């Protein structure tokens, strides 16, 4: 990887800042044991307000990731009653996760009943209609995993919903929805791309993966 035409080696970065960036990332993702180890190793200051709801968030996140959406909804409402009431998109995504789980368990009649009672009301809004139709189409297949809508059954989809839920809870707790680490990487990527364009290089665009390997 070529060095930037600009010099950044002589820019001093405070270790404390780096520790805080890493710590906020670990807390954001509910890596509780890693947080405790990190604090023990680095002697970083323990942010008590962050740790308070981490356990609850971790459980909610994992329930969503496993597809146990009803449990995730129940715990979310215990933690913050109005999160889902004020976020219909998230509510729809969580309910649809449960629907998918029923379809995967081959409980089609139950899935249809659930869809009619819980997902049906969303059909009044056109923005949910297309998604709803895709979910309903899963019912037609004996093996939904082999259907054109297979992505709705994937771990990636559950991860996406779990992430959205986690961000919503963090925002509700007046904490940043995105970690400083994520923002810094996004910003660094944009800067590298701009520098590459300025230098007039015809090579491939900046890739974070390649940069980390080099």
């Amino acid at each position, binding site marked *: 990887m070529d060095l930037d035409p600009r010099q950044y080696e002589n820019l001093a970065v405070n270790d404390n800042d780096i520790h805080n960036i890493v710590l906020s990332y670990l807390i954001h993702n509910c890596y509780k044991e890693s947080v405790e180890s990190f604090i023990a190793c680095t002697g970083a200051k323990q942010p008590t307000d962050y740790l308070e709801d981490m356990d609850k968030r971790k459980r909610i996140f994992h329930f969503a990731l496993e597809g146990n959406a009803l449990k995730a909804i129940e715990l979310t409402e215990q933690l913050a009653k109005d999160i889902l009431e004020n976020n219909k998109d998230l509510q729809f995504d969580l309910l649809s996760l449960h629907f998918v789980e029923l379809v995967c368990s081959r409980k089609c009649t139950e899935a*249809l009943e659930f869809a009619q009672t819980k997902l049906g009301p969303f059909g009044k809004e056109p923005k949910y*209609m297309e998604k709803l139709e895709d979910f309903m*189409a899963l*019912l037609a297949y004996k093996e939904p995993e082999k259907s054109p809508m297979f992505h709705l059954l994937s771990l990636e989809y559950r991860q996406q919903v779990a992430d959205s839920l986690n961000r919503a809870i963090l925002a509700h707790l007046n904490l940043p929805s995105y970690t400083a680490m994520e923002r810094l990487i996004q910003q660094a990527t944009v800067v590298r791309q701009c520098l590459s364009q300025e230098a007039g290089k015809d090579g491939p665009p900046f890739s974070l993966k390649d940069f980390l390997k080099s």
Partner: protein
Amino acid sequence: MELSSIKDAFDRVTKKQKISSSKSQEVVDQVGREIEQALATIQSPHDPSSPVDQKSALTELKFKLNAIGSLQQLEGSNKELNISLTKYQKLLEKLLNPDISKAYRNVDFDTHIVDQIIANHFYRQGLFDLGDSIINEAGEPDAAALRSQFLEMHQIIGAMRERNLQPALTWVSANREKLVQIGSNLELKIHTLQFVEVLQNGTRADALKYARTYLAPFASLNKGEFPKLMGCLLYAGRLESSPYSELLSPIHWEMTTEELARQFCTLLGQSYENPLSVAVAAGVEGLPILLKLANVMAAKKQEWQEMKQLPVPVELGKEFQFHSIFVCPVSRDQGSEENPPMLLPCLHVLCKQSIMKLSKNSTRTFKCPYCPAEATVANCKQLYF
């Protein structure tokens, strides 16, 4: 056709007729009143001192009737009516030529073919008794070849009109491969109609079972339509108050019925449009031009029936165009059996006569008029439209 001038002339006639009629009525009423008055005078109980003179009453009546001048009044209005009627008749004769015999050629009239066309016309329309009657009387048993197929088609359509899709479903599944070859999604459309019926009248489980059994096989071919149908399951039993309520519209039944009839005819190798109706409609559209042509050529002492090609185009609408027509880009002649289109090795197309001219009657190679490629008559292929 100058229909507007005919309409104007007709309006003038009706106007004059109304005037004449009201004038006649007026005169008749006036005469009637005078006669009634005279009768009343004659029949009144007389005073013995002044006996009524019947003769003088009648003389007075005669005088009054002469004063009215009924004959002159009626003559005037009728004369005007007759003038406009005569003008109208002349205009009709001028613009609407009643003798259409000038506009057709004396071709061999094959009674057998005409009998078959008429019989098939009735079969197409579902008038089987009438078709059979013609075939029996004309002694044309071969003409009944399509009877059974059209009978099947009308039975299916009849059942569909009564909201019974079973015969249609049987037919589409029996002809599935042929329908797929012509790019038809008729089977899905018929299953959709049935699915909507199940959604409305069956249980939720019935609808789901129907979707899994009959709609799922079409999922990969109809990616846009299929999820919508599955979305309907959310509103089983209450489709009318759902975003899919338009699926309940009777127009879907009408359109699917028509599509079935079209595709039935396609698989039979028959046109959907009735050949007899098409022939008559095309004739009606082309007739004015042909009549005009016949009159113009008669005035020039020329016989248009002898010509191989008409000197004027008879423009028919798109609905009458069933075959591609080739016009040679070099000679501007229309392709025919004697002068067919020929494909050059460079894939340009000319008519045979142009190729013969360019190759000096097949004696040498020639250059394509549209590209630098060389060709010989031997390596040109005839095209069939």
